[in-house]
């Protein structure tokens, strides 16, 4: 008879698991029952955006305000701008917040995105090893790229079709250089991870300022070498995915989100974000 003890235990264990799952179901119901007594069930809005807005913490500041005002649950998918735009063309997202103006315009032309509005900017900066083997400085990023190529210093690239990667490729093209060879290291990862690799490999890397400020404390070998040039501006736009082209899109809330991002109060929140921690704004308001 004892042989059944093992199975009894196993059975009890299974029951425990089942009840754990069961609990969650009732708990969920309980939660939904409690919260929206006066309000209806919140609608869901899928926001596809670049990693910099999430990793810098900006969205944690903005989204709760929007969610509360409009009774919407925003599902943020933080990916590279390339992937975010692709989600737009496929109609997998409702609204996009991205930073690759040229590629964005293609989406508007193709009719996949509508209601595109400028939101904010910060700038790209060139980061390099503290001993600066290529001796680059100032605000001319094209000249800096040329020098880095000449001395064959390590250059780290995201290589992931993100907004920053697109920007970097644009600068190489403008400088008339085809980056190749062992010293051009493609990580295929996000900004934070790529900065880490640059730190380990003593390489130069193009980054947005927000991510740099948030990560600076871990990047002991690196420093800003080039900043402030006109061509280093990093502009963010918000846009809706066209509901006429993709039928499952939540256009009502997407439109509200676009309006929310450009309204003066939100713009003030954006501009004041980061001042306390970093002593400067990570993003600067920039509506049309």
């Amino acid at each position: 008879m004892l042989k059944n003890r093992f199975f009894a235990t196993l059975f009890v264990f299974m029951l425990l698991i089942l009840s754990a799952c069961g609990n969650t179901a009732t708990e969920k119901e309980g939660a939904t029952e409690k919260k929206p007594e006066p309000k209806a069930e919140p609608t869901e809005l899928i926001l596809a955006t670049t990693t910099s807005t999430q990793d810098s913490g900006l969205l944690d500041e903005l989204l709760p305000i929007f969610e509360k005002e409009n009774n919407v649950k925003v599902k943020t998918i933080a990916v590279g701008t390339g992937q975010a735009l692709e989600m737009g063309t496929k109609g997998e997202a409702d609204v996009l917040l991205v930073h690759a103006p040229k590629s964005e315009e293609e989406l508007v032309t193709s009719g996949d995105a509508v209601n595109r509005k400028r939101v904010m900017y910060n700038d790209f900066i060139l980061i390099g090893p503290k001993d600066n083997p290529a001796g680059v400085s100032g605000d001319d990023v094209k000249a800096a790229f040329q020098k880095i190529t000449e001395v064959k210093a390590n250059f780290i690239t995201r290589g992931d079709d993100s907004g920053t990667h697109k920007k970097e490729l644009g600068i190489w093209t403008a400088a008339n250089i085809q980056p190749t060879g062992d010293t051009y290291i493609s990580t295929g990862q996000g900004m934070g991870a790529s900065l880490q690799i640059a730190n380990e490999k003593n390489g130069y890397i193009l980054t947005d300022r927000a991510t740099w400020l948030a990560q600076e404390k871990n990047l002991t070998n690196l420093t800003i070498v080039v900043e402030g040039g006109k061509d280093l501006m990093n502009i963010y736009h918000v846009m809706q995915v066209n509901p006429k082209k993709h039928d499952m899109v939540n256009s009502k809330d997407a439109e509200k989100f676009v309006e929310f991002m450009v309204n003066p109060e939100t713009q003030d929140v954006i501009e004041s974000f980061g001042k306390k921690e970093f002593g400067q704004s990570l993003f600067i308001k920039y509506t049309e």
Partner: protein
Amino acid sequence: MELIINGLKKAIEMILTGDREIFEITWLTLRVCFLATLISSIIGLPLGMFLGLTRFRGRKIILVLINIGMGLPPVVAGLWITMLLWRSGPLGHLQLLYSPTAIVMAQVLVSLPIITGLTSSAFQQINEKMLLQIKALGATKIQTFGILLKQTKIAIVAAIMAGLGRVIAEVGAAQMVGGNIQGDTRILTTSIVMEVSKGNFDVALAISFILLTVALLITASLTLLQQRKRLS
């Protein structure tokens, strides 16, 4: 070294102060992993027994497929489930992408072959002479089944543990189909990835300690269950 100590301190601090968010993330991780393992066990154990005990045409091909599945990279599973659940995909109307259900689906896909495969190997090892003897002694089908289960107990629990280990450790698929959405689909592994990309190594380390503790507790209790003295 300092970083590790800071991470440990942070982990203890998070647990002691009852950090609500980390508690919710851990709870979601447990729910998702247990549910996925449970579903995989319910399907995988009987399927594994069947494949281990019977002989039929095409059985070897199925076994090959299952063995390949045991090594199925989670990101591949994630990609398949993503395409299935896309709004433009075949199950798009269910609106399941970026929900915990989607994570469970992906995790079942990676743990089911493991549980099925290991169970079937255990049953294949049963000596055929023993089967004959059991029959000769006049055991009913249910009695035979009970004896076989007892024989393979260790292997069955090992199969469940391997499946559970796979889903708890898994990050690629959960990231892809779940989207790491705060308060919704963020689980322990995806938060570690996110905190690393934010540069918060201490927090990432702290969460990793919590994850390891959870995994240790579950595995320890299952191991104790498995290693209990053979009762006969």
